[in-house]
């Protein structure tokens, strides 16, 4: 984040509305229609195998009651055993299909997510920050994946089982089956009561738990600061506060379950009792058999398990729904490319010109206002001013990353922001102070700028920025960098970024404090080398220190979003304005020294 941008409140990324969520879910299923149909079918079959045994038991009881021969008992027994064995296999296959479906869908979802992330307009990324995006891509996608793998198959099976058990009971005896259904009404009431409150309570529960975890990881990240500033007591307090909050949130969800679970438990006993009593009357009338009554009673008992499963997971389904809305919300931020008509190849000049340019972040005052600036090809311009003056924003406008609110920025005769990204970056590149080190090898990091460069090119670029540490790496260009590989410091990351610029070879480079982390000697040499390599190219150097200005061809002073002075160093001194005043306070330090230095 740049200084200027950081001061703006971050508008959040969009969250998909209900309709879009439904459409997105439907499209995920449609993309894998066969897999989905097979999964549901096999799950149905698995549920069927699970409900055959009470029916067979009922037949057995009737057979025993009527004094049937042992052979018929054996036939029924063998069938019972056979179905149980089939059940093992069916449940296994159903589960596997469910998991595989979940796994595939999750993979598609995260690939779609990364495609959308890569298609996000740069402004959106700048404005909403990377934290939320990363959280959506990791936490939310993982939660949905877990749901797809576990909750979705479990609830599917449970729902199918519930339906089949009820159907089976109705088939055995419609009246007894109906009795069972009446008994189940309690579950409906309790379930509704619970689900209406569960979402908010579980969201708070989840938030409190992440607060505990983040409290811990932050303490770990700041362990050194805890020691140096003796913040031990404060961390204990923070830990206890997080615990207290988590306890309160968990107690609340526990209270909800304390109502739900007993209601469900009692509601599953009621149908059994009802079937017993009504069944007794029917048996006396001779309209049904004892076997049928027993079978129905067993069915009613069997209902308890899938109903419990269903209620257990439905809450997770709800929270995944919220996650899914966040993941899908990214789609709303991906707008169609802004260019009305791509102007490929239309750029005939390297001259960049800003005319009366103003820019504001939505809902805020202008950070850049009324800027006029003409850049001659090959010119070196220093853009200086206090932090918060709008230098970086102007740099981004000149780089074509953002479109001005008012006025225009053109390259040759073409409006910069109309250019296709591919075209744009062959003209202008902006290198920021904080460059990203990509996971992967040195080569991976350099090829970002030029996918076709060969090793000789890479080595030449690295040599130009004096990244001689590359020679000491165990695997040369193939050395993996970063936390899991060879550790590099911030200045080495900056060298890689500069090497990237050399490889990309644009005609205009905007350096936004791009050498600030290098040690002074290396920075100076790197810049000189960069200047030599990019001879004839336009360079805009953004800095908040005056030293930069002195060395550039022209200096532009920026304050409160405006260019207040533009000219060469000497011209600006003669002008005796803001630059001259700043320079005075600086050059006072360069006063002729007197005493002899002492050797250490």
């Amino acid at each position, binding site marked *: 984040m740049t200084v200027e941008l950081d001061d703006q409140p971050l508008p959040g990324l969009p969250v998909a509305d209900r309709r879009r969520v439904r459409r997105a879910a439907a499209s995920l299923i449609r993309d894998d229609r066969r897999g989905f149909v097979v999964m549901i079918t096999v799950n149905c079959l698995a549920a069927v195998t699970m409900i055959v045994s009470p029916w067979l038991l009922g037949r057995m009881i009737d057979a025993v009651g009527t004094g049937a021969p042992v052979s018929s008992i054996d036939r029924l027994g063998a069938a019972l055993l056979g179905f149980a064995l089939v059940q093992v296999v069916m449940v296994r296959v159903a589960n596997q299909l469910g998991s595989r479906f979940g796994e595939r869908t999750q993979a598609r979802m995260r690939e779609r997510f990364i495609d959308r992330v890569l298609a996000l307009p740069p402004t959106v990324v700048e404005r909403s920050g990377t934290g939320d995006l990363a959280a959506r891509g990791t936490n939310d996608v993982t939660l949905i994946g877990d749901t797809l793998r576990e909750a979705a198959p479990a609830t599917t099976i449970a729902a199918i089982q519930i339906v089949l058990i009820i159907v089976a009971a109705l088939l055995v005896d419609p009246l007894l089956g109906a009795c069972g259904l009446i008994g189940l009404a309690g579950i409906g009431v309790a379930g509704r009561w619970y689900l209406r409150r569960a979402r908010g309570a579980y969201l708070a529960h989840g938030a409190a738990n992440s607060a505990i975890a983040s409290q811990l990881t932050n303490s770990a990240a700041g362990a050194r600061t805890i020691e140096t500033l003796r913040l031990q007591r404060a961390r204990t307090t923070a830990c206890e506060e997080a615990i207290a909050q988590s306890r309160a949130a968990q107690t609340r969800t526990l209270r909800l379950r304390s109502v739900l679970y*007993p209601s469900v438990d009692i509601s599953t006993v009621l149908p059994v009792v009802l079937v017993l*009593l009504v069944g007794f009357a029917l048996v006396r009338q001779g309209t049904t058999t004892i076997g049928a009554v027993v079978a129905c009673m067993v069915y009613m008992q069997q209902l308890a398990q899938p109903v419990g499963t269903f209620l257990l997971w439905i809450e997770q389904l709800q929270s995944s729904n919220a996650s899914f809305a966040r993941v899908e919300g990214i789609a709303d931020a991906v707008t169609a490319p802004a260019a009305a008509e791509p102007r490929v190849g239309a750029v005939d000049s390297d001259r960049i010109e800003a005319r009366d340019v103003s820019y504001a972040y939505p809902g805020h005052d202008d950070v850049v206002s009324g800027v006029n600036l003409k850049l001659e090809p090959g010119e070196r311009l220093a853009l200086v001013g206090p932090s918060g003056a709008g230098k970086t924003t102007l740099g981004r406008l000149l780089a074509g990353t953002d479109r001005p609110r008012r006025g225009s920025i053109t390259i040759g005769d073409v409006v910069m922001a109309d250019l296709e990204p591919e075209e744009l970056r062959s003209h202008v590149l902006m290198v920021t102070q904080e460059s990203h080190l990509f996971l992967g090898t040195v080569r991976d990091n350099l090829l970002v700028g030029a996918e076709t460069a060969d090793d000789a090119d890479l080595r030449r670029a690295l040599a130009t920025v004096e990244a001689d540490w590359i020679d000491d790496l165990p695997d040369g260009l193939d050395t993996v960098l970063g936390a899991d590989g060879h550790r590099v410091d911030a200045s080495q990351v900056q060298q890689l970024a500069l090497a990237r610029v050399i490889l990309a070879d644009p005609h205009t480079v905007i350096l936004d404090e791009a050498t600030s982390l290098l040690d002074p000697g290396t920075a100076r040499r790197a810049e000189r080398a960069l200047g030599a390599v990019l001879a004839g190219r336009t360079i805009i150097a953004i800095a908040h220190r005056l030293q930069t200005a002195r060395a550039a061809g022209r200096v532009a002073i920026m304050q409160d979003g405006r260019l207040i002075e533009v000219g060469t160093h000497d011209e600006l001194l003669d002008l005796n304005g803001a630059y001259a005043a700043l320079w005075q306070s600086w050059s006072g330090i360069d006063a002729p020294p007197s005493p002899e230095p002492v050797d250490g």
Partner: protein
Amino acid sequence: MARGFDPAEPDLRGPVRYMLWLVRCQRRRALLGAFYGSFWMVSLAVPPLLIARAIDGGLEKGDASAVWTWALALLAVGVLNAWLAIGRHRTMTRIRMEALFGTNRVVIEQVKRLGADLDRRVSAGELATIGVADIVITSAALTVTGPGVGAVVSYIVVGFLVADVSVLLAVVVLLGVPALAILVGPLLGRLLGAQDSYRDDQSRISAQLIDVVEGLRVLNSFGGKRRHASRFRDQSARLRDRGYEVAAVTSWISGLAVGLPAVFLAGVTWLAARLASEGTITTGELVAVYGYVAMLVIPVSSLIEGADQLSRAMVSARRIVGFLGAEPMRASGRGAVPGPAHQAELVDPASGVRVEPGRFTALVSSRPGTSVAVIERLGRLVDSDATWAATRLTSIPLEEIRERILVADHEAHLFAGTLRRVLQGNTDADDRAIEDAIHVAAAEDVVQALPHGLDSIIDERARNLSGGQRQRVRLARALVADPEVLLAVEPTSSLDAFTEAIVGERLRASRAGRTTVVTTTSTLILAQADVVLFLVDGVVAAAGTHEALLAAGGEYRRLVSRGDEPDLATGPSAVAVLDRGVPT
């Protein structure tokens, strides 16, 4: 409480011992959980008994009052079971919750104990795994204390009930159930292996996604998106395939967990039906046996699930125990020699740096890392030969050093809280002291820009402040602490020239008479220093005032003063000798 058991002192002799410690911390609750778990599971065996009576005594004989009696008894037992079930659930939830909190507390204690050594002992990723997953998995496994115990008890009770019907059936049931558990056992091992590698791939793909998100700015300006997209796709496909592998195993486990009890149930029912047709047992007893064995599904699957949870928790608990057992690298706080009574000279023999008491010293180095290393030795963030009033810092209690010497890191962590709390640090500083520090750090605008001034909430890592604001808040916090010796690393590197000049002057004035060391290459700060120590290759090469060193010319002048570099024409800009910024 058993001898030698201390709730504040976790048992780190192994993952099992650690989990036992978590149970012993809440022994009473664990016993209650076992009580509820056992009674609940045993009472699940009662409805089949009642149903059998209702069939034999009521349905078959056509006895209405018997049917009503048994039906009402069934209802009563149902209500009792519901009560036991929720009692069990509530107790177990509390046990898991307290175990989670307990582990959190001891992990925080260990974080505090390791302090600056933490980074050198464990990676950030490892701790994130502990914080996010391991603590939860370990506490979830404590479920075995309630339902686990209950499962064993109910198994035995059901054995007796079945023996009452038929000894033959009882033998079959009592031998069959353990056989089931043993059958499922080996699968768990395979499950663990598959899950572990799945989790590794999962965290790798998360890392890659974060990598792309954070590098978006670079990808946007340089291109290279296709390359990253295809790399991500490869990883994603690999994770999916790994997921298939895991599913192949887990699906067997759930299949067997549901199916094996059913197979067993079928076998026993068959046997019982034959006994019933021979007249050895009644129809009601046949139904009862079916009910008993069907009910055994609950304890058996609870045991299988418990075994699964336990084996996963072993992995997690091992990681937790590993972290808790890590020892600080420094011979921490064992010294007993008191520090100097008054301000005294700090000396770092390795670099030749001598810090005179009560003065403002600046360290300049052509490589920033070397001055930081000096600060770490002088601030005893590492063990070294550094001395304070000729006493080795390692001989002085660490506690005392922390109280008197403050290292203000360049990237010192800013914890969440109100700005006031952030600035107070561990002091009870009042608003006046805080405002003074804010003034010295020229951070008035930070307070003004926030909606509620000092009462505004600062996010974790002060993400809601800009880089320059963060740096000034860090400096102000160090000044509020008002240490006898302040060792500050690059305290003004992200500030613009104007602000930096102001901070330099005010800092010097506010620290007058007390020892202050700053690392910097800014002439604005160097000009304020009483003594400038110039380090070359980590060793003091020159010392004196800034003016004196400048006058002597040479490397120092070249390093800090760039105003008159002659190569303006060739260089793009002589950008930034002093442009040292921080990532914001």
